[in-house]
């Protein structure tokens, strides 16, 4: 009796979870259907699995180029965020001065500023730098990476700061007495110990940067520079009525996310949980 009820519960729970994801099923099955089939029954499996809409959507979205841009921007931004914010956080924790406190508090306080408050002056400033100093900040992927680092600095420093505070200082002191430089101490001793929080910082930043739309839409003007959210946006602007093509396009954009999730599922859920508790 007890066993059947527990099996029933298991089945019900998984059904609930699958029902929850039904919109993904819906766009997937409809990405193979022609117009008539779609209107006959939007929920049924398609008659045949032809990839013609995928090929067409890939071409119209310039999908491979967008995927490349998204990967490049996300990976370089996240690597630099990890390096710079862990170094900064470590120094702030280990230097006992009022400047450390002021800097740390400034990082924390700015977490409350919405992006909309910064976007216009930021764009003015970036195009001013581009024009007057000839540093290409505006309309380049590298400029966007620079801005990504700035916007994600606060949260990353905050997470590292909390974690580093719990590491005993004695280890570092021993290494310093042995004559290692600060640089050596940090990279050889401290950074490896930060692994759990580095995973959290990386995951939170990957999700946020990969999916970001507004900032790239303001900075990247050239079509060749578009990221996945940007190319999806313009794709929908042009082909709103052609739903089957749109469904294939949406499925394409979700595939990299599913691959990422399948590979790092445990770390992601753990990382999110830990990030929130801090």
């Amino acid at each position: 009796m007890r066993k059947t009820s527990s099996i029933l519960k298991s089945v019900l729970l998984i059904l609930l979870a699958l029902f929850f994801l039904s919109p993904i099923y819906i766009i997937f099955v409809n990405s193979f259907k022609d117009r008539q089939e779609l209107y006959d029954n939007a929920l049924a499996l398609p008659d045949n699995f032809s990839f013609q809409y995928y090929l067409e959507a890939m071409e119209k979205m310039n999908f491979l180029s967008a995927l490349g841009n998204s990967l490049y921007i996300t990976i370089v931004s996240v690597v630099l965020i990890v390096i710079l914010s862990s170094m900064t956080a470590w120094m702030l924790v280990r230097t006992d001065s009022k400047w450390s406190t002021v800097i740390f508090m400034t990082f924390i306080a700015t977490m409350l500023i919405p992006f909309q408050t910064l976007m216009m002056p930021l764009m003015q400033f970036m195009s001013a730098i581009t024009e007057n100093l000839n540093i290409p900040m505006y309309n380049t992927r590298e400029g966007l990476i620079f801005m990504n680092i700035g916007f994600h600095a606060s949260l990353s420093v905050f997470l590292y700061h909390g974690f580093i505070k719990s590491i005993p200082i004695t280890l570092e002191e021993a290494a310093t007495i042995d004559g290692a430089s600060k640089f050596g101490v940090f990279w050889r001793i401290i950074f490896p110990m930060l692994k759990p929080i580095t995973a959290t910082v990386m995951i939170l930043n990957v999700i946020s940067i990969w999916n970001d739309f507004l900032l790239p839409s303001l900075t990247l003007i050239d079509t060749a520079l578009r990221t996945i959210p940007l190319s999806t946006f313009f794709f929908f602007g042009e082909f709103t009525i052609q739903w089957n093509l749109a469904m294939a396009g949406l499925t394409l954009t979700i595939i990299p996310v599913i691959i990422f999730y399948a590979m790092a599922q445990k770390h992601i859920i753990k990382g999110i949980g830990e990030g929130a508790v801090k």
Partner: protein
Amino acid sequence: MPNRNKLKWFLLFTVPLIFIFTIVVLIPFLVGIYYSFFEWDGIGANPKVFVGLDNFVELWGDNQFLRSMWLTTLFTVLSVITINVIGLAFALLVTSRIQTANAARTLLFMPYLIGGLILGYIWQFVFVDVFSFLGEVTGLDQVFFNWLVDPQFALYGLVFVFTWQMAGYIMIIYIAGIQAIPNDVVEAAKIDGASTWQRFTRITFPLLMPALTISLFLTLSSAFKIYDVNLSLTGGGPANATELFAMNIYQEIFGSSNYGFGQAKAIVFFLIVAAITLTQVYMTKKREVEM
């Protein structure tokens, strides 16, 4: 000499990030405050006219702005409730001793990974085509119709999609909170004869206050600042009925080229976000119980 050496290392480690952060966040923030006192159309060659606090006074006569403020408040209240109720329910389900709990947790979290812009497009299709189809098949056309053409239901549609996106994320935070509750406390209550409901309301829930503080903070601030889902699901329509705060600011600045006036809105936006989130954290922190 050692102090000098220490300073050198301090600067070497912190200056790169502080430099970037200053250029990207601090300077634009200060310049933004400055811009909000001017009237300007965003074209460099055209003059910026100093108008003092006029922009901030004018705001209260801008009906679309006031309306978007009200809609955003309504949207935020509804979503914070639905996301936290559903997220907590999910968390309780997947932490119970059910075999498929881990698989269910994995699936429920997934929407959060897909960005808001893409989620909005997915649900646009569901509302426009699948809902109409379901309405025809089931005859329940009071529930299943294209929500996005009705001003009121379009806003509910936003709440619906945003809940779908965030519930799994908030679930993870509640799971962390539930797992931090020592098992013996719950077991002791069980032995004392407390029912499941009593155990939840008297033990689990009060001990979840820290998780609630974080969840409320995250849902409150992200709901209030919502933009991507708003843009792709409804685009602010029908007839501006779902133009929320962030979109109103974007439209004012980049749509109508009222850079100064729009920036004043953006500053007010910041003040409201800061006030709401700080008040919430302060109030729920007070209610956290120490173990």
